[in-house]
């Protein structure tokens, strides 16, 4: 049985470590914050200028001056700090954020990532995604394995890139792949419950290796 959105987020949370500074994208990545283990200290960065992002406010306590990068109202924690946008991306570009977890339209077997535009359709812009994938130490993509039957894990991205050779791990509803962006390619390291290697092979355009440790 394939993983649900929440189960994908739960799996992504296993990549967090105590003391990590983390940037979460919108959509499934935001759900990762529900699965931070008790007792683990993780600080969430919002690239609009906040470190130590708290939960949504109680109704009636929303503050228009306090939002995350998805423009959602959030709250402050005792650990919170604020900074301007240039400092925020200095933090990102400078390699100080331990992990970014974000969504994607396509990932290629060489680590290329596309998630910001579809030519000829509505173009919204890349926001901070290009800076994040270029600067953060570890980039984890969480996405559906296929869209309308088409594998989102590609031999080559067909959409304009967000970053070239930037992805370290891909978590889909069917399993988990590690990605060696220095030429080692994709390796399947985990299967979702009751998903078989043959299922994955049938639904994946990209070529991939299978880890010796893969449980089948």
């Amino acid at each position, binding site marked *: 049985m394939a993983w649900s959105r929440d189960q994908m987020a739960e799996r992504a949370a296993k990549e967090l470590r105590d003391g990590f500074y983390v940037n979460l994208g919108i959509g499934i990545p935001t759900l990762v914050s529900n699965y931070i283990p008790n007792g683990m200290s993780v600080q969430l960065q919002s690239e609009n200028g906040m470190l130590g992002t708290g939960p*949504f406010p109680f109704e009636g306590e929303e503050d228009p001056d306090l939002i995350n990068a998805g423009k959602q109202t959030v709250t402050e924690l005792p650990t919170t700090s604020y900074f301007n946008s240039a400092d925020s991306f200095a933090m990102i570009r400078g390699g100080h954020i331990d992990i970014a977890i974000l969504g994607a339209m396509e990932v290629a077997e060489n680590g290329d990532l596309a998630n910001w535009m579809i030519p000829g359709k509505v173009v919204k812009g890349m926001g901070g995604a290009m800076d994040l994938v270029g600067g953060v130490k570890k980039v984890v993509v969480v996405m559906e394995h296929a869209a309308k039957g088409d594998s989102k894990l590609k031999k080559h991205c067909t959409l*304009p890139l967000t970053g*070239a050779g930037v992805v370290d791990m891909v978590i889909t509803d069917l399993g988990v792949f590690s990605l060696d962006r220095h030429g080692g390619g994709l390796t399947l390291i985990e299967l979702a419950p009751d998903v078989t290697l043959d299922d994955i092979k049938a639904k994946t355009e990209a070529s991939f290796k299978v880890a010796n440790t893969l449980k089948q």
Partner: protein
Amino acid sequence: MNKVYADARSALAGLLKDGMTIMAGGFGLCGIPETLILAIRDSGVKNLTVVSNNCGTDGKGLGILLDTRQIKKMISSYVGENKTFMNQFLANELEIEFNPQGTLAERIRAGGAGIPAFFTKTGYGTKIAEGKDVREFDGEKYVMERGLVADLSIVHAYRGDTEGNLAYRKTARNFNPPMATAGKVTVAEVEHLVKPGDINPDHIITPGIYVKRMIHVPTAPKHIEQRTVRKRQKADAPAGTGEEV
């Protein structure tokens, strides 16, 4: 030297001309200088190039200047949530230059700091790098990006003293401080106007040297784009959780 003006119209007097470049602070609708934006609308100035992370929403923030078709070109990182923008863009009535958000912020910071260009890894190997110089440093490829300055910067601050020293509130800081440094003239609107010494000098974020003119906006409206809340009983809810209402 008096920096404080009676209202937005007088603070912008003599600064506006057709075809000029304006930087406007804010992230989404958070920390935007909306009183100054309204005065720019009322001035009728047109063919503007506007540098701002976003372009407001329909009828709010910089969306106000889209409704009146005063903007010719936007330099932004993200322009979702705005139908008017999309319609004008798809009809070729509006140009957009997308910059990655951090590259945009650094271009502005560099512009204000007198740095004409810098190298960044961001965007290497993508459309953003096309036509730009690429250099290798320590085995990694970097793209050259230019510093950015504007004829006018408009910013929103929480507190300001009459010398132009500014302090911001929470995430309403965002692009305001770097933009305050990168305008040939910077005009600030402040929610609380105080006398020199009332802001602890250690807490001043934008030194007054960058601010030429200012106005007091004690009742400036603030907008929430995505109102997200959580239920009272879940006091220990983790970050970014709850429900949208």
